[in-house]
Protein backbone atom coordinates (compact mmCIF):
# COMPACT_ATOMS: atom_id res chain seq x y z
CA UNK A 1 0.00 0.00 0.00
CA UNK A 2 2.70 2.43 1.08
CA UNK A 3 4.71 1.31 -1.91
CA UNK A 4 1.85 2.11 -4.25
CA UNK A 5 1.39 5.49 -2.59
CA UNK A 6 5.05 6.34 -3.03
CA UNK A 7 5.00 5.28 -6.67
CA UNK A 8 1.90 7.36 -7.29
CA UNK A 9 3.51 10.36 -5.57
CA UNK A 10 6.62 10.02 -7.66
CA UNK A 11 4.61 9.58 -10.83
CA UNK A 12 2.58 12.68 -10.02
CA UNK A 13 5.77 14.63 -9.42
CA UNK A 14 7.28 13.35 -12.63
CA UNK A 15 4.21 14.43 -14.55
CA UNK A 16 3.86 17.80 -12.86
CA UNK A 17 7.53 18.62 -13.26
CA UNK A 18 7.74 17.54 -16.88
CA UNK A 19 4.57 19.50 -17.58
CA UNK A 20 6.11 22.77 -16.29
CA UNK A 21 5.99 25.20 -19.17
CA UNK A 22 9.17 27.20 -19.31
CA UNK A 23 8.39 30.84 -20.01
CA UNK A 24 11.70 31.92 -21.50
CA UNK A 25 10.97 34.28 -24.37
CA UNK A 26 13.71 36.88 -24.58
CA UNK A 27 13.55 40.66 -24.29
CA UNK A 28 11.85 41.49 -27.65
CA UNK A 29 8.88 39.31 -26.72
CA UNK A 30 8.65 39.72 -22.96
CA UNK A 31 10.39 42.99 -22.06
CA UNK A 32 13.54 43.47 -20.00
CA UNK A 33 14.20 41.35 -16.93
CA UNK A 34 15.30 43.35 -13.92
CA UNK A 35 18.61 41.87 -12.78
CA UNK A 36 19.70 44.80 -10.64
CA UNK A 37 20.08 42.59 -7.55
CA UNK A 38 23.54 41.04 -7.13
CA UNK A 39 22.21 37.46 -7.01
CA UNK A 40 20.36 37.68 -10.32
CA UNK A 41 23.19 39.60 -11.97
CA UNK A 42 25.65 36.89 -10.95
CA UNK A 43 23.23 34.21 -12.14
CA UNK A 44 22.87 35.93 -15.49
CA UNK A 45 26.64 36.12 -15.97
CA UNK A 46 27.09 32.51 -14.93
CA UNK A 47 24.38 31.41 -17.35
CA UNK A 48 26.03 33.34 -20.19
CA UNK A 49 29.39 31.77 -19.49
CA UNK A 50 28.32 28.15 -18.90
CA UNK A 51 24.91 27.40 -20.36
CA UNK A 52 23.78 29.89 -23.02
CA UNK A 53 25.75 28.24 -25.80
CA UNK A 54 23.70 25.03 -25.65
CA UNK A 55 20.47 26.47 -24.21
CA UNK A 56 20.31 29.96 -25.80
CA UNK A 57 18.22 32.18 -23.54
CA UNK A 58 17.43 28.93 -21.61
CA UNK A 59 15.43 27.84 -24.65
CA UNK A 60 16.18 24.86 -26.85
CA UNK A 61 19.10 25.02 -29.26
CA UNK A 62 21.74 22.32 -29.31
CA UNK A 63 20.13 21.01 -26.11
CA UNK A 64 16.53 21.14 -24.86
CA UNK A 65 14.78 24.04 -23.16
CA UNK A 66 15.74 24.06 -19.47
CA UNK A 67 13.03 22.80 -17.12
CA UNK A 68 12.42 25.56 -14.56
CA UNK A 69 12.86 23.29 -11.55
CA UNK A 70 15.67 23.94 -9.06
CA UNK A 71 16.04 20.24 -8.23
CA UNK A 72 16.24 19.19 -11.85
CA UNK A 73 18.69 21.94 -12.75
CA UNK A 74 20.98 21.14 -9.80
CA UNK A 75 21.05 17.40 -10.47
CA UNK A 76 21.58 17.84 -14.20
CA UNK A 77 24.34 20.43 -13.81
CA UNK A 78 26.30 18.30 -11.34
CA UNK A 79 25.71 14.90 -12.99
CA UNK A 80 25.57 15.89 -16.68
CA UNK A 81 23.21 13.08 -17.64
CA UNK A 82 23.18 12.19 -21.33
CA UNK A 83 24.92 14.35 -23.90
CA UNK A 84 25.44 17.31 -21.54
CA UNK A 85 28.75 17.90 -19.76
CA UNK A 86 28.81 17.83 -15.95
CA UNK A 87 29.96 20.93 -14.07
CA UNK A 88 32.23 20.30 -11.09
CA UNK A 89 32.12 22.44 -7.99
CA UNK A 90 35.52 23.73 -8.97
CA UNK A 91 34.20 25.08 -12.25
CA UNK A 92 30.82 26.17 -10.98
CA UNK A 93 30.90 26.73 -7.20
CA UNK A 94 27.77 26.02 -5.11
CA UNK A 95 27.09 29.69 -4.44
CA UNK A 96 27.28 30.46 -8.14
CA UNK A 97 24.93 27.56 -8.90
CA UNK A 98 22.46 29.05 -6.39
CA UNK A 99 22.59 32.34 -8.30
CA UNK A 100 22.23 30.52 -11.62
CA UNK A 101 19.13 28.66 -10.40
CA UNK A 102 17.60 31.87 -9.00
CA UNK A 103 18.19 33.59 -12.34
CA UNK A 104 16.61 30.78 -14.38
CA UNK A 105 13.53 30.64 -12.13
CA UNK A 106 13.16 34.42 -12.39
CA UNK A 107 13.65 34.39 -16.18
CA UNK A 108 10.98 31.72 -16.62
CA UNK A 109 8.51 33.42 -14.28
CA UNK A 110 9.09 36.77 -16.01
CA UNK A 111 8.34 35.29 -19.42
CA UNK A 112 5.17 33.60 -18.15
CA UNK A 113 3.97 36.75 -16.40
CA UNK A 114 4.11 38.92 -19.52
CA UNK A 115 3.29 36.28 -22.11
CA UNK A 116 1.64 38.37 -24.77
CA UNK A 117 -0.76 37.47 -27.58
Amino acid at each position, binding site marked *: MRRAGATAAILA*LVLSVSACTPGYRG*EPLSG*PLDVSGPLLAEGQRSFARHCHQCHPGAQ*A*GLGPSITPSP*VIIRIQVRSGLGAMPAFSEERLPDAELDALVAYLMELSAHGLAVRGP
Partner: protein
Amino acid sequence: MLRAPYRHAFAAFLVLALTTACFPFQASRGGGQTDFEGPRVVDPADVAVVAGFTVEVVAEGLTFPTGVAFGDDGRAYVTESGYAYGEVFTTPRLVRIERDGSHTVVAEGDNPPWNGVDAWQGDLFVAEGGVLEGGRILRITPGGSVSVLAEGLPSQGDHHTNGPVVRDGFVYVGQGVVTNSAVVGLDSYGFGWLPRFPDLHDVPCEDVVLVGDSFETPDPLTDGDTTVRTGAFSPFGVAAEPQQVVRGSVPCSGAIMRVPVEGGELELVAWGFRNPFGLAFGPDDELYVTDNMYDDRGSRPVFGAGDLLWRVVPGWWYGWPDFHGDRPLTDADHYRPPRRPAPGFVLATHPNEPLQPAAVLAVHSSSNGFDFSRHAGFGFEGDAFVAQFGDMAPGVGKVLAPPGFRVVRVDVGTGVVQDFLVNRDGSGPASLHGSAGLERPVAARFDPEGTALYVVDFGVMLVTDEAPVPIPGTGVLWRVVRSEAP
Protein backbone atom coordinates in the same frame (compact mmCIF):
# COMPACT_ATOMS: atom_id res chain seq x y z
CA MET B 1 9.92 5.41 2.50
CA LEU B 2 12.27 8.25 1.56
CA ARG B 3 12.16 11.52 3.50
CA ALA B 4 10.59 14.42 1.64
CA PRO B 5 13.70 16.22 0.35
CA TYR B 6 15.15 12.95 -0.87
CA ARG B 7 11.83 12.04 -2.42
CA HIS B 8 11.90 15.23 -4.46
CA ALA B 9 15.47 14.66 -5.53
CA PHE B 10 14.73 11.05 -6.38
CA ALA B 11 11.70 12.02 -8.46
CA ALA B 12 13.69 14.71 -10.21
CA PHE B 13 16.39 12.19 -10.91
CA LEU B 14 13.79 9.87 -12.40
CA VAL B 15 12.46 12.66 -14.62
CA LEU B 16 15.93 13.41 -15.82
CA ALA B 17 16.78 9.77 -16.37
CA LEU B 18 13.61 9.42 -18.43
CA THR B 19 13.80 12.66 -20.38
CA THR B 20 17.51 13.26 -20.85
CA ALA B 21 19.98 10.79 -22.24
CA CYS B 22 17.66 10.61 -25.21
CA PHE B 23 19.63 13.23 -27.15
CA PRO B 24 21.22 10.69 -29.52
CA PHE B 25 17.80 9.37 -30.49
CA GLN B 26 16.10 12.69 -31.19
CA ALA B 27 15.74 14.05 -34.72
CA SER B 28 17.55 17.22 -35.73
CA ARG B 29 15.34 20.29 -36.03
CA GLY B 30 17.51 22.83 -37.78
CA GLY B 31 16.12 26.07 -39.13
CA GLY B 32 16.95 25.13 -42.71
CA GLN B 33 15.23 21.76 -42.50
CA THR B 34 12.06 22.97 -44.16
CA ASP B 35 10.58 23.82 -47.58
CA PHE B 36 10.23 27.16 -49.28
CA GLU B 37 8.04 28.36 -52.09
CA GLY B 38 8.86 31.83 -53.32
CA PRO B 39 8.61 34.66 -53.70
CA ARG B 40 9.80 35.77 -50.28
CA VAL B 41 7.38 38.15 -48.61
CA VAL B 42 8.65 40.49 -45.88
CA ASP B 43 6.70 42.31 -43.19
CA PRO B 44 8.27 44.10 -40.21
CA ALA B 45 5.18 43.17 -38.19
CA ASP B 46 6.49 39.59 -38.06
CA VAL B 47 9.75 40.74 -36.44
CA ALA B 48 9.93 41.50 -32.73
CA VAL B 49 12.44 44.04 -31.44
CA VAL B 50 13.24 45.39 -27.99
CA ALA B 51 10.68 48.02 -26.89
CA GLY B 52 11.33 51.55 -28.15
CA PHE B 53 12.55 50.53 -31.62
CA THR B 54 10.91 50.13 -35.03
CA VAL B 55 11.86 47.74 -37.83
CA GLU B 56 11.80 48.79 -41.50
CA VAL B 57 12.57 47.17 -44.84
CA VAL B 58 15.18 49.11 -46.85
CA ALA B 59 15.69 46.82 -49.85
CA GLU B 60 14.53 43.42 -51.11
CA GLY B 61 15.40 41.05 -53.93
CA LEU B 62 19.12 40.87 -53.18
CA THR B 63 21.00 37.69 -54.03
CA PHE B 64 23.13 36.33 -51.16
CA PRO B 65 23.96 39.74 -49.57
CA THR B 66 26.78 39.54 -47.00
CA GLY B 67 27.70 43.04 -45.83
CA VAL B 68 26.80 46.72 -45.76
CA ALA B 69 28.82 49.96 -45.51
CA PHE B 70 28.11 53.63 -46.09
CA GLY B 71 29.72 55.79 -48.75
CA ASP B 72 30.49 59.50 -48.48
CA ASP B 73 27.18 60.03 -50.29
CA GLY B 74 25.46 58.57 -47.22
CA ARG B 75 24.13 55.64 -49.28
CA ALA B 76 24.28 52.02 -48.22
CA TYR B 77 26.54 49.78 -50.31
CA VAL B 78 25.88 46.04 -50.12
CA THR B 79 28.05 43.12 -51.21
CA GLU B 80 26.26 40.26 -52.93
CA SER B 81 28.35 37.18 -52.38
CA GLY B 82 28.17 35.45 -55.77
CA TYR B 83 28.61 32.06 -54.11
CA ALA B 84 26.75 30.15 -51.44
CA TYR B 85 27.19 26.79 -49.76
CA GLY B 86 25.56 24.16 -51.91
CA GLU B 87 27.97 25.15 -54.71
CA VAL B 88 25.64 27.77 -56.17
CA PHE B 89 27.59 30.35 -58.19
CA THR B 90 26.14 33.72 -59.23
CA THR B 91 28.00 37.01 -59.85
CA PRO B 92 29.69 38.71 -56.88
CA ARG B 93 28.63 42.35 -56.91
CA LEU B 94 28.82 45.59 -55.01
CA VAL B 95 25.46 47.35 -55.26
CA ARG B 96 24.36 50.79 -54.12
CA ILE B 97 20.96 50.98 -52.49
CA GLU B 98 19.06 53.98 -53.84
CA ARG B 99 16.55 56.00 -51.82
CA ASP B 100 13.62 54.10 -53.31
CA GLY B 101 15.18 50.75 -52.36
CA SER B 102 16.31 49.88 -55.89
CA HIS B 103 19.87 48.60 -56.44
CA THR B 104 22.52 49.97 -58.80
CA VAL B 105 25.47 47.74 -59.64
CA VAL B 106 28.79 49.47 -58.84
CA ALA B 107 31.22 46.62 -59.52
CA GLU B 108 31.25 42.93 -60.37
CA GLY B 109 33.80 40.18 -59.85
CA ASP B 110 34.46 36.59 -60.85
CA ASN B 111 36.14 35.07 -57.80
CA PRO B 112 33.34 34.74 -55.23
CA PRO B 113 32.24 34.95 -52.46
CA TRP B 114 32.41 38.66 -51.65
CA ASN B 115 32.10 38.41 -47.89
CA GLY B 116 31.61 41.88 -46.54
CA VAL B 117 32.47 45.53 -47.13
CA ASP B 118 33.69 48.57 -45.21
CA ALA B 119 34.06 52.19 -46.34
CA TRP B 120 36.83 54.73 -45.82
CA GLN B 121 37.27 58.14 -47.40
CA GLY B 122 34.55 57.39 -49.92
CA ASP B 123 36.03 54.12 -51.20
CA LEU B 124 34.70 50.66 -50.50
CA PHE B 125 36.88 47.78 -49.29
CA VAL B 126 35.69 44.27 -50.03
CA ALA B 127 36.85 40.89 -48.72
CA GLU B 128 36.84 38.63 -51.76
CA GLY B 129 36.40 35.06 -50.47
CA GLY B 130 37.90 33.44 -53.53
CA VAL B 131 36.73 29.80 -53.55
CA LEU B 132 38.16 29.51 -57.06
CA GLU B 133 41.37 31.57 -57.12
CA GLY B 134 42.09 32.30 -53.47
CA GLY B 135 41.09 35.27 -51.35
CA ARG B 136 41.84 38.89 -52.19
CA ILE B 137 41.30 42.28 -50.62
CA LEU B 138 39.74 44.78 -53.04
CA ARG B 139 39.44 48.55 -53.03
CA ILE B 140 36.55 49.84 -55.13
CA THR B 141 35.78 53.47 -55.95
CA PRO B 142 32.13 54.64 -56.03
CA GLY B 143 32.63 54.85 -59.82
CA GLY B 144 33.36 51.10 -59.86
CA SER B 145 37.08 50.88 -60.54
CA VAL B 146 38.62 47.95 -58.67
CA SER B 147 42.18 47.60 -57.40
CA VAL B 148 43.63 44.54 -55.67
CA LEU B 149 45.40 45.29 -52.36
CA ALA B 150 46.32 41.70 -51.48
CA GLU B 151 45.84 38.27 -52.99
CA GLY B 152 46.57 34.58 -52.52
CA LEU B 153 44.71 34.15 -49.24
CA PRO B 154 43.86 30.47 -48.57
CA SER B 155 40.11 30.61 -49.27
CA GLN B 156 39.47 27.61 -51.50
CA GLY B 157 38.20 25.40 -48.65
CA ASP B 158 35.31 25.44 -46.16
CA HIS B 159 35.79 29.07 -45.11
CA HIS B 160 36.84 32.21 -46.89
CA THR B 161 38.23 35.74 -46.56
CA ASN B 162 35.80 37.81 -44.49
CA GLY B 163 35.39 41.08 -42.67
CA PRO B 164 36.70 43.60 -43.53
CA VAL B 165 37.17 46.66 -41.34
CA VAL B 166 39.29 49.75 -42.07
CA ARG B 167 41.12 51.58 -39.28
CA ASP B 168 44.13 53.91 -39.17
CA GLY B 169 45.19 53.31 -42.76
CA PHE B 170 44.86 49.52 -42.69
CA VAL B 171 42.25 47.07 -43.99
CA TYR B 172 41.78 44.17 -41.58
CA VAL B 173 40.31 40.86 -42.79
CA GLY B 174 39.47 37.56 -41.16
CA GLN B 175 40.65 34.44 -42.95
CA GLY B 176 38.77 31.20 -42.20
CA VAL B 177 40.38 27.76 -42.10
CA VAL B 178 40.17 25.19 -44.89
CA THR B 179 38.62 22.46 -42.71
CA ASN B 180 36.51 21.94 -39.60
CA SER B 181 39.30 21.00 -37.20
CA ALA B 182 42.49 20.78 -39.33
CA VAL B 183 41.85 17.41 -41.02
CA VAL B 184 40.69 17.18 -44.65
CA GLY B 185 38.00 14.49 -44.88
CA LEU B 186 34.75 13.33 -46.40
CA ASP B 187 33.07 16.56 -45.26
CA SER B 188 35.52 18.46 -47.52
CA TYR B 189 34.29 16.31 -50.39
CA GLY B 190 30.72 17.15 -49.38
CA PHE B 191 31.49 20.88 -49.49
CA GLY B 192 32.48 20.42 -53.12
CA TRP B 193 36.05 21.72 -53.04
CA LEU B 194 38.06 18.51 -52.53
CA PRO B 195 37.69 17.33 -56.16
CA ARG B 196 38.64 20.89 -57.27
CA PHE B 197 41.69 21.17 -55.03
CA PRO B 198 42.78 17.68 -53.93
CA ASP B 199 46.06 18.99 -52.43
CA LEU B 200 44.53 21.78 -50.34
CA HIS B 201 45.08 21.84 -46.55
CA ASP B 202 45.37 24.32 -43.69
CA VAL B 203 48.51 26.42 -43.41
CA PRO B 204 49.59 27.64 -39.95
CA CYS B 205 50.90 31.20 -39.52
CA GLU B 206 53.98 30.01 -37.62
CA ASP B 207 55.75 26.65 -37.55
CA VAL B 208 53.82 24.02 -35.58
CA VAL B 209 54.75 20.51 -34.38
CA LEU B 210 52.17 17.72 -34.85
CA VAL B 211 51.31 14.94 -32.41
CA GLY B 212 51.22 12.79 -35.54
CA ASP B 213 47.79 11.13 -35.46
CA SER B 214 46.08 10.35 -38.75
CA PHE B 215 42.41 9.67 -39.55
CA GLU B 216 41.20 6.85 -41.81
CA THR B 217 38.40 7.43 -44.33
CA PRO B 218 37.22 5.96 -47.63
CA ASP B 219 38.75 7.75 -50.62
CA PRO B 220 35.94 9.47 -52.57
CA LEU B 221 38.42 10.65 -55.22
CA THR B 222 38.94 7.11 -56.54
CA ASP B 223 36.31 4.70 -57.79
CA GLY B 224 37.53 1.73 -55.80
CA ASP B 225 36.83 1.10 -52.15
CA THR B 226 40.29 2.09 -51.01
CA THR B 227 40.80 3.89 -47.73
CA VAL B 228 43.33 6.60 -46.96
CA ARG B 229 44.89 8.11 -43.85
CA THR B 230 45.04 11.90 -43.44
CA GLY B 231 46.92 13.95 -40.85
CA ALA B 232 46.24 17.46 -39.57
CA PHE B 233 47.56 20.34 -41.73
CA SER B 234 48.10 17.75 -44.50
CA PRO B 235 46.58 17.15 -47.95
CA PHE B 236 43.85 14.50 -48.20
CA GLY B 237 45.40 11.04 -48.08
CA VAL B 238 48.72 12.16 -46.57
CA ALA B 239 49.35 10.77 -43.09
CA ALA B 240 51.13 12.77 -40.39
CA GLU B 241 54.34 11.71 -38.63
CA PRO B 242 54.97 12.04 -34.88
CA GLN B 243 56.76 15.35 -34.15
CA GLN B 244 56.35 16.42 -37.77
CA VAL B 245 57.06 20.12 -38.23
CA VAL B 246 54.61 22.02 -40.45
CA ARG B 247 56.13 25.24 -41.73
CA GLY B 248 54.20 28.40 -41.11
CA SER B 249 53.81 31.27 -43.58
CA VAL B 250 51.66 34.34 -44.18
CA PRO B 251 48.98 34.45 -45.61
CA CYS B 252 47.70 31.60 -43.47
CA SER B 253 44.54 29.84 -42.30
CA GLY B 254 42.43 30.99 -39.36
CA ALA B 255 44.00 34.42 -39.00
CA ILE B 256 43.33 38.12 -38.91
CA MET B 257 45.62 39.90 -41.34
CA ARG B 258 45.89 43.50 -42.49
CA VAL B 259 47.16 45.44 -45.48
CA PRO B 260 47.66 49.21 -45.94
CA VAL B 261 44.71 50.92 -47.69
CA GLU B 262 47.05 51.87 -50.54
CA GLY B 263 48.25 48.26 -50.87
CA GLY B 264 51.54 46.78 -49.69
CA GLU B 265 52.65 43.94 -47.50
CA LEU B 266 50.06 41.68 -45.89
CA GLU B 267 50.79 41.42 -42.15
CA LEU B 268 49.64 38.95 -39.52
CA VAL B 269 47.61 40.45 -36.66
CA ALA B 270 46.60 37.31 -34.71
CA TRP B 271 45.93 33.62 -35.46
CA GLY B 272 44.46 30.36 -34.15
CA PHE B 273 40.92 31.36 -35.13
CA ARG B 274 38.56 29.03 -37.00
CA ASN B 275 36.33 31.24 -39.11
CA PRO B 276 36.80 34.86 -38.02
CA PHE B 277 33.83 36.30 -39.88
CA GLY B 278 32.88 39.66 -38.43
CA LEU B 279 35.39 42.35 -37.42
CA ALA B 280 34.70 45.61 -35.59
CA PHE B 281 36.56 48.08 -33.41
CA GLY B 282 35.01 48.57 -29.97
CA PRO B 283 34.48 51.74 -28.01
CA ASP B 284 37.79 50.88 -26.29
CA ASP B 285 39.47 51.12 -29.75
CA GLU B 286 40.32 47.42 -29.53
CA LEU B 287 39.62 45.02 -32.39
CA TYR B 288 36.87 42.45 -31.78
CA VAL B 289 36.02 39.42 -33.92
CA THR B 290 33.28 36.80 -34.13
CA ASP B 291 34.63 33.28 -34.65
CA ASN B 292 32.41 30.46 -35.97
CA MET B 293 33.38 27.44 -33.94
CA TYR B 294 33.78 23.71 -34.59
CA ASP B 295 31.13 21.49 -36.14
CA ASP B 296 30.19 17.93 -35.33
CA ARG B 297 31.34 16.66 -38.73
CA GLY B 298 34.21 15.06 -40.60
CA SER B 299 37.15 13.03 -39.34
CA ARG B 300 37.67 15.01 -36.13
CA PRO B 301 34.18 16.13 -35.06
CA VAL B 302 33.69 18.39 -32.04
CA PHE B 303 30.48 18.63 -30.01
CA GLY B 304 28.95 21.61 -28.27
CA ALA B 305 31.40 24.41 -29.18
CA GLY B 306 29.57 27.75 -29.13
CA ASP B 307 30.64 30.57 -31.45
CA LEU B 308 32.98 33.04 -29.79
CA LEU B 309 33.37 36.78 -29.63
CA TRP B 310 37.00 37.72 -29.03
CA ARG B 311 38.80 40.86 -28.03
CA VAL B 312 41.93 40.59 -30.16
CA VAL B 313 45.39 40.88 -28.63
CA PRO B 314 47.87 41.41 -31.49
CA GLY B 315 50.30 38.54 -31.97
CA TRP B 316 48.25 36.07 -29.91
CA TRP B 317 47.26 32.49 -30.94
CA TYR B 318 43.56 31.84 -30.18
CA GLY B 319 43.47 28.06 -29.81
CA TRP B 320 42.34 26.45 -33.07
CA PRO B 321 42.53 23.47 -33.67
CA ASP B 322 43.01 22.25 -30.08
CA PHE B 323 41.00 24.62 -27.91
CA HIS B 324 37.55 26.15 -27.73
CA GLY B 325 38.17 29.49 -26.06
CA ASP B 326 40.40 28.67 -23.10
CA ARG B 327 39.10 25.08 -22.84
CA PRO B 328 40.99 22.14 -24.32
CA LEU B 329 39.05 19.88 -26.72
CA THR B 330 40.48 16.95 -24.76
CA ASP B 331 37.75 17.65 -22.15
CA ALA B 332 35.88 14.63 -23.54
CA ASP B 333 32.82 15.04 -21.30
CA HIS B 334 32.09 18.27 -23.14
CA TYR B 335 33.51 17.97 -26.64
CA ARG B 336 33.07 14.29 -27.51
CA PRO B 337 30.07 13.91 -29.87
CA PRO B 338 27.63 11.14 -28.94
CA ARG B 339 28.93 7.82 -30.25
CA ARG B 340 32.09 9.32 -31.77
CA PRO B 341 35.63 9.37 -30.43
CA ALA B 342 36.76 12.29 -28.27
CA PRO B 343 39.02 14.76 -30.09
CA GLY B 344 42.66 14.55 -29.05
CA PHE B 345 45.22 17.31 -29.50
CA VAL B 346 46.79 17.52 -32.96
CA LEU B 347 49.52 19.98 -31.92
CA ALA B 348 52.38 18.64 -29.76
CA THR B 349 52.98 22.09 -28.28
CA HIS B 350 50.78 25.17 -28.19
CA PRO B 351 52.11 28.59 -29.18
CA ASN B 352 50.70 30.29 -26.08
CA GLU B 353 48.10 29.94 -23.33
CA PRO B 354 44.62 30.50 -24.88
CA LEU B 355 42.56 33.39 -23.53
CA GLN B 356 39.00 33.56 -22.27
CA PRO B 357 36.61 34.91 -24.93
CA ALA B 358 34.57 38.08 -24.38
CA ALA B 359 31.37 36.07 -24.95
CA VAL B 360 30.20 32.58 -25.90
CA LEU B 361 27.33 32.53 -28.39
CA ALA B 362 24.98 29.70 -29.29
CA VAL B 363 26.42 26.51 -30.79
CA HIS B 364 25.88 26.50 -34.58
CA SER B 365 24.30 29.99 -34.44
CA SER B 366 26.82 31.17 -37.06
CA SER B 367 27.47 34.48 -35.32
CA ASN B 368 28.77 36.75 -38.04
CA GLY B 369 28.91 40.47 -38.85
CA PHE B 370 28.48 42.87 -35.95
CA ASP B 371 28.91 46.44 -34.81
CA PHE B 372 29.04 48.41 -31.56
CA SER B 373 26.42 50.95 -30.55
CA ARG B 374 28.13 54.28 -29.97
CA HIS B 375 25.24 56.76 -29.88
CA ALA B 376 23.12 57.64 -26.86
CA GLY B 377 20.22 58.27 -29.23
CA PHE B 378 20.18 54.57 -30.11
CA GLY B 379 21.03 53.39 -26.62
CA PHE B 380 22.87 50.32 -25.33
CA GLU B 381 26.14 52.17 -25.94
CA GLY B 382 29.16 49.89 -25.93
CA ASP B 383 27.12 46.74 -26.61
CA ALA B 384 27.91 44.62 -29.67
CA PHE B 385 24.99 43.81 -32.00
CA VAL B 386 25.73 40.46 -33.63
CA ALA B 387 23.90 39.07 -36.67
CA GLN B 388 23.34 35.33 -36.37
CA PHE B 389 22.92 33.50 -39.66
CA GLY B 390 21.48 30.42 -37.96
CA ASP B 391 22.33 26.75 -38.04
CA MET B 392 23.17 24.57 -41.01
CA ALA B 393 21.96 21.39 -39.29
CA PRO B 394 22.06 18.53 -39.90
CA GLY B 395 25.31 18.98 -41.89
CA VAL B 396 27.13 20.67 -38.99
CA GLY B 397 25.61 18.38 -36.35
CA LYS B 398 22.22 18.01 -34.77
CA VAL B 399 20.18 20.69 -32.96
CA LEU B 400 16.94 20.24 -31.00
CA ALA B 401 15.68 23.71 -32.07
CA PRO B 402 17.11 26.29 -34.47
CA PRO B 403 19.80 28.51 -32.87
CA GLY B 404 20.51 31.92 -34.45
CA PHE B 405 18.30 33.53 -37.13
CA ARG B 406 18.31 36.76 -35.07
CA VAL B 407 20.36 39.71 -33.91
CA VAL B 408 21.67 39.49 -30.35
CA ARG B 409 23.05 42.20 -28.11
CA VAL B 410 26.25 41.36 -26.25
CA ASP B 411 27.71 43.12 -23.23
CA VAL B 412 31.39 42.47 -23.94
CA GLY B 413 32.27 43.33 -20.34
CA THR B 414 30.13 40.61 -18.72
CA GLY B 415 29.65 38.23 -21.68
CA VAL B 416 25.85 38.41 -21.29
CA VAL B 417 24.03 37.72 -24.57
CA GLN B 418 20.42 38.85 -25.07
CA ASP B 419 17.97 38.79 -27.95
CA PHE B 420 17.51 42.12 -29.74
CA LEU B 421 15.72 41.26 -33.01
CA VAL B 422 13.87 37.95 -33.43
CA ASN B 423 11.02 36.39 -35.32
CA ARG B 424 7.71 36.78 -33.50
CA ASP B 425 6.70 33.20 -34.27
CA GLY B 426 9.61 31.63 -32.43
CA SER B 427 13.11 30.43 -33.16
CA GLY B 428 14.13 29.65 -36.70
CA PRO B 429 13.78 31.52 -39.99
CA ALA B 430 10.54 32.91 -41.41
CA SER B 431 10.47 30.09 -43.98
CA LEU B 432 10.17 27.59 -41.12
CA HIS B 433 7.07 29.35 -39.76
CA GLY B 434 5.53 30.48 -43.03
CA SER B 435 5.89 34.06 -41.78
CA ALA B 436 7.32 37.22 -43.35
CA GLY B 437 10.10 37.89 -40.83
CA LEU B 438 13.85 37.30 -40.75
CA GLU B 439 15.62 34.54 -42.65
CA ARG B 440 19.40 34.58 -42.07
CA PRO B 441 20.94 37.80 -40.65
CA VAL B 442 24.60 37.82 -41.70
CA ALA B 443 25.82 41.35 -40.93
CA ALA B 444 24.79 44.27 -38.72
CA ARG B 445 26.19 47.77 -38.99
CA PHE B 446 25.26 51.21 -37.69
CA ASP B 447 24.91 54.08 -40.13
CA PRO B 448 27.55 56.84 -39.89
CA GLU B 449 25.46 58.82 -37.35
CA GLY B 450 25.08 55.71 -35.20
CA THR B 451 21.31 56.04 -34.86
CA ALA B 452 20.12 53.29 -37.22
CA LEU B 453 21.19 49.64 -37.21
CA TYR B 454 21.22 48.07 -40.68
CA VAL B 455 20.81 44.30 -40.78
CA VAL B 456 21.81 42.31 -43.85
CA ASP B 457 19.61 39.23 -44.27
CA PHE B 458 21.22 36.67 -46.61
CA GLY B 459 17.84 35.22 -47.56
CA VAL B 460 16.52 31.70 -47.60
CA MET B 461 18.95 28.83 -47.30
CA LEU B 462 17.41 25.41 -46.84
CA VAL B 463 19.47 22.45 -45.71
CA THR B 464 18.69 18.93 -46.88
CA ASP B 465 20.47 15.75 -45.80
CA GLU B 466 22.59 16.07 -48.96
CA ALA B 467 23.42 19.78 -49.24
CA PRO B 468 22.43 23.37 -48.51
CA VAL B 469 19.93 24.89 -50.96
CA PRO B 470 20.34 28.70 -51.09
CA ILE B 471 17.58 30.60 -52.91
CA PRO B 472 18.77 33.55 -55.08
CA GLY B 473 16.86 36.83 -54.93
CA THR B 474 15.59 36.38 -51.36
CA GLY B 475 18.08 38.70 -49.58
CA VAL B 476 16.81 41.71 -47.66
CA LEU B 477 18.30 44.81 -46.03
CA TRP B 478 16.48 45.71 -42.79
CA ARG B 479 16.87 48.80 -40.62
CA VAL B 480 16.15 49.27 -36.92
CA VAL B 481 15.61 52.80 -35.59
CA ARG B 482 14.50 54.33 -32.31
CA SER B 483 10.79 55.09 -32.12
CA GLU B 484 10.91 56.32 -28.51
CA ALA B 485 13.75 58.05 -26.73
CA PRO B 486 15.82 55.67 -24.59
